[in-house]
């Protein structure tokens, strides 16, 4: 039983990181319909931010975290301005910004790979290593609670929902579409960056870390559904539990256990393609 509890805590912490990446996708998909696979690279930026701020400059953790989040907001905002808005304004199809964002993915990764040494770089733990999992869980819960309150209780949140439900009607009601889109990208980048910063003390900062995170987050998103904020967290947790329980308890060779979450994902797509939590009408 002690094994199981240890594993449950570890899976919850991993699930929180997946959930944050899924949330980053969701923040952008909901109002714009754009799937941005660069979230993995944004998470990587967050991790390298952790290396620069906490390892190189040895800033106190809260200061470093605030700086990184501010930087990520800027990254998201600039990305929307440069890679998305010009295309949308000229009436390009939805596929155009998605491809442009894949370009952003490549540029981000190459920029990091030429600016930093090739080895994984250490990022310090803000708390004792044994307690770090609880720290990750607490931060994630706070972030999700914040976004939930934002969407449910504030006028701005309602604007986002309105745009998600019907762009044209929302625009006619006087909602500033451009601002909602810019904010959704800034928020998405900040959340992805936070996910990267949280996972960095464990996996170190390295330039190839983005793609696996982008895939794990996307899987979590599909499982949870793009409809509701809670869905992202639920999807992340389910994915992490499926991964780790399979590796630990399933009587199959180590190499095959990696495939089980993917089988799980396929089943999900067949049986319930909208994800666990549907959007409210």
């Amino acid at each position, binding site marked *: 039983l002690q*094994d199981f509890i*240890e*594993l449950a805590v*570890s899976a919850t*912490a*991993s699930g929180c*990181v997946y959930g944050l990446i899924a949330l980053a996708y969701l923040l952008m998909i909901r109002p714009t319909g754009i799937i941005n696979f660069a979230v993995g690279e944004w998470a990587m930026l967050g991790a390298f931010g952790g290396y620069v701020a906490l390892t190189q400059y040895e800033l106190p953790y809260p200061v470093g975290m605030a700086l990184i989040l501010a930087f990520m907001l800027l990254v998201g905002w600039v990305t929307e301005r440069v890679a998305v808005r010009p295309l949308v304004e000229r009436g390009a199809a939805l596929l155009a910004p998605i491809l442009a964002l894949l370009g952003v993915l490549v540029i981000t990764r190459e920029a990091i790979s*030429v600016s930093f*040494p*090739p*080895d*994984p*770089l*250490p990022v310090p733990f803000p708390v004792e*290593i*044994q307690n770090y999992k609880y720290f990750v869980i607490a931060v994630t819960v706070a972030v999700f609670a914040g976004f939930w309150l934002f969407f449910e209780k504030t006028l701005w949140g309602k604007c986002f929902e309105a745009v998600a439900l019907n762009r044209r009607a929302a625009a006619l009601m006087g909602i500033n579409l451009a601002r909602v889109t810019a904010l959704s990208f800034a928020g998405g980048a900040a959340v992805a960056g936070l996910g990267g910063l949280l*996972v960095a003390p*464990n*996996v*170190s900062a*390295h330039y*190839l*870390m983005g*793609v*696996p*995170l982008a*895939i*794990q987050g996307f899987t979590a998103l599909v499982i949870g559904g793009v409809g509701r904020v809670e869905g992202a967290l639920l999807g992340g947790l389910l994915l992490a539990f499926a*991964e*780790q*329980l399979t*590796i*630990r308890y399933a009587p199959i*060779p*180590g*190499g095959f*256990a*990696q495939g089980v979450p993917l089988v799980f994902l396929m089943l999900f797509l067949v049986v319930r393609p909208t994800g666990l939590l549907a959007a409210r009408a």
Partner: protein
Amino acid sequence: MRVLALLAFALLTNSAFSQDTIKIGVITDRVGVSKPYSEPATEGVIFAADEINRRGGLLGRKIELLIEDDQSRPDISAALARKLIDQGVVFILSVSLSPATQQQQTVTMEAKVPQMTPMNSADYLTTQLDNPWFWQTGPLGSVQGATLLAHARSKNLKRVALITDNSDLGQAIAKAFRGAFEKSGIQLVADEVVARGATTAMPQMQKIRAADPEAMFLAGVLTAENVLIFRAYKELGVRFPIHSSYNLSVPIYETVAKGLVDGITFVDAYDPDKPEVKAFVAAYKKGTGKDPQNLHGYGYDGIMLVADAIRRAGSLDKEKIREAMQKTNYAGVMGAKGMRYHFPEGKRAGFDPNGMVVRVYEKDRQGRVVYVGQK
């Protein structure tokens, strides 16, 4: 910028000294996957060439290095070998990835130009092509596995666990370990894989803990995933010893796995207590102000072996250099105490199968040798 500067340097020196220097080509990797290994090795090459030149050079001439970057890409690599030969090099030293070195052989074999790799470990480099112009003096992959297992046998292990990652090389090393366990009658009680990009190795380590092995063998080569394994090991508070492949001889673990590696044993080709190593470390520190790593030693030995062969050949005639190289008998920085590089019975892999050592991490530093050879 640095590449440009080097290029400019190469061009300048080319015109100024081309009559009186001995040109040696170096193919390295400055931006690709092999960069963490190739850069220190290349620094070792440059240091060794400077040392030879300071002591009066070779056959009365100075050595001039022509350094090229192949990004570990075989396609680029062969073209660079051709370019170096066109520029008149008498020897090519290959310090990027094994497949790139292999591709260069297609050129050196045809052009009859001597070529050597002082660090590549792939066993196939001297067996696939019958190229009398090529030698390999780095420890072979098979020797690394055999040395680690000899150490394990000396501990009388009966039940062991194996953990690796899902990279090609990690899988290949794990496969070699499995085969060797079977041959030695050691029971494999847990066999786990950590996928690239995983965020924890907790479930794998729990499973290994439940199997209660006497020791765990680490075959993974992905640094970040290996650190996850050490972290889970520490968090679970397990006590069985860890024996690792040569991957842990890369010094990056001293910084990225701080506080996690104490007591882990690993295969290496470097003994810090060896007199040649002590002299090398002191000279390198004096010359550059930096501490050399084991990887610098590969490059240093590489150019010293080439210089030794040219000296014995007494001329720059390539056939004479080839004959001299084949008769090499030289003690360098790398290898266990007393090891000499030589190529027995016409073979072209020159690292003594009993020349590797098993070392142990002491706190966060790569420490003393605890086992030698594979007997």
